């Protein structure tokens, strides 16, 4: 394992100060289910200084806010989300999605913030190849085995898929993220926070959180009346695995008419892929048994599969049909 120094700040301000001091060689450490594996595999990009935020109060909670929405501390364990009655009552789809992330053991350690901001799981990066995210200048996934961990929707230098399921489930509810920064609190939608491969602080990463910023909480607005939502996920095995393709979908209905929708695919692109073409198509349509087939025909027209992953697009379209069918029952 790569040698590291660990700091244990007790306030967010102190944590930001330490992160600012060490620049990009430091990283926030919470659940560790992504970070510790990168250290164990001695990746060049793994940090040398860990800022353990578990001692900081007020980062681990699930509470209802004054507007009737829910605020979740970034260091809240995924298992706590999966067991939350409040979330189950207000957003059962999110609870279902969280329950499909990795395994029960890992959900006991992983945090919501960690799931949202995790590194990609491309086998070449994790295997120590000198790729764009690991000190090199080439994407091995683009020319090698790209059947699972790589984008079927194009790329920007790195072709790995964004692996998190939480974002795919949160975007349909217009959830927002709060970040503590040296300049104060910054608020972004989840979609803005995870826009896919970005050059941030001289690195390629899937999110826009800078080296001296900390995701502190996620705020989910109150559920809108008439909203139905569904989360679908295809993976090689029923537990543990990342999505080959996933779907977070919400429909705002008046009787059977769709007034608004959010359609977000996971596991197929370098970001949670919001399919606005399908959203526009669904607007004003009646939710019925034929709608899934029709929506499939307009979905993912911008697909650009690599040599071995065109099947991801078929899977994603299939999930769209099954998601709509589920919401019609």
């Amino acid at each position: 394992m790569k040698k590291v120094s660990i700091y244990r700040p007790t306030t967010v301000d102190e944590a930001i100060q330490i992160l600012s001091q060490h620049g990009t060689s430091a990283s926030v450490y919470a659940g560790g289910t992504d970070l510790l594996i990168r250290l164990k595999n001695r990746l060049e990009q793994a940090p040398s200084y860990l800022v353990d935020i578990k001692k900081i109060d007020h980062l681990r909670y699930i509470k209802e806010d004054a507007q009737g929405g829910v605020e979740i501390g970034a260091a809240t364990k995924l298992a706590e989300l999966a067991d939350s009655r409040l979330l189950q009552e207000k957003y059962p789809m999110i609870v279902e999605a969280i329950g499909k992330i990795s395994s029960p053991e890992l959900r006991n350690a992983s945090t919501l913030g960690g799931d949202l901001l995790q590194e990609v799981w491309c086998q070449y990066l994790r295997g120590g190849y000198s790729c764009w995210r690991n000190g090199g200048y080439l994407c091995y996934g683009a020319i090698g085995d790209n059947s699972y961990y790589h984008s079927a929707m194009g790329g920007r230098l790195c072709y790995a898929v964004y692996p998190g399921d939480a974002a795919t489930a949160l975007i349909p509810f217009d959830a927002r993220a709060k970040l503590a920064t040296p300049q104060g609190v910054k608020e972004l939608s989840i979609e803005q926070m995870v826009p896919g491969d970005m050059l941030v602080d001289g690195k390629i990463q899937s999110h826009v959180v800078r080296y001296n910023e900390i995701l502190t909480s996620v705020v989910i607005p109150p559920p809108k009346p008439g909203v139905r939502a569904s989360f679908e996920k295809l993976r090689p095995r029923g537990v543990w695995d990342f999505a080959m393709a996933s779907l977070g979908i919400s429909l705002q209905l008046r009787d059977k008419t769709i007034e608004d929708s959010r359609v977000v695919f996971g596991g197929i692109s370098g970001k949670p892929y919001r399919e606005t073409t399908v959203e526009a198509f669904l607007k004003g349509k009646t939710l019925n048994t034929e709608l899934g087939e029709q929506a499939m025909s307009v979905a993912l027209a911008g697909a650009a599969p690599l040599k071995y992953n065109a099947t991801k697009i078929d899977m994603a379209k299939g999930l769209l049909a099954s998601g709509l069918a589920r919401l019609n029952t």
Partner: protein
Amino acid sequence: MQTIEALLLEPVGCLAEFPSAPFHEIAVRLFGRKRKASWSASRTYWHLLNLIDAVETPFGAEKKSVAETLEVEAVDAASIYEDVVPALAELKSMGIRLFVASSLSRRAASRFIERNSLGQFLSGVRTRDDAGGVKSAPLLNALVGASLPREKTMFLTDTVEGIKVARSVGVHPILMMNDPEESQRLAMHNPAGGVVSLHEMPDFIRLIAAQNQRG
């Protein structure tokens, strides 16, 4: 890698999809080659360059004309990659100096540039006729003629020979990963980097600049 200031471009395989038949035909007619043409125009082209490079005396007028005519035929049948024009425009706007440094004849290279309206983006064009040789000669001619710092210059290529030539003149060989299987093989030859499409070059150069800024 130091912050990049210039990019050397070989049109064959990096800016356009060329047919391999005209290059093969040159090899047949001028060098008596009998083997079948490769499916890859780049391989055929670089194989031809090896043949030209091995000849001690330059082509006479008749052979020169045959080669040029067939090269122009190749240029006329070539399809420029759709991302080339926007990528070159962006690179130019970033202040990157762009050169065609090609082992094609001047006539063929000029026709390619004119046909695809690329002249507006280029700081210079160096061909085998300008350089008096192929392979590394046009690259050296561009480097010396324009006083380009070698450690701040990239050469885009999709062949093993291209990687070697870039290394031999001290510029960074960047792999154009047109074909996945072929690129896997080429990646073993230690290019300095690789891109799937020319539209990635601006981000590539920005990333290096940001890394250097970060220190």
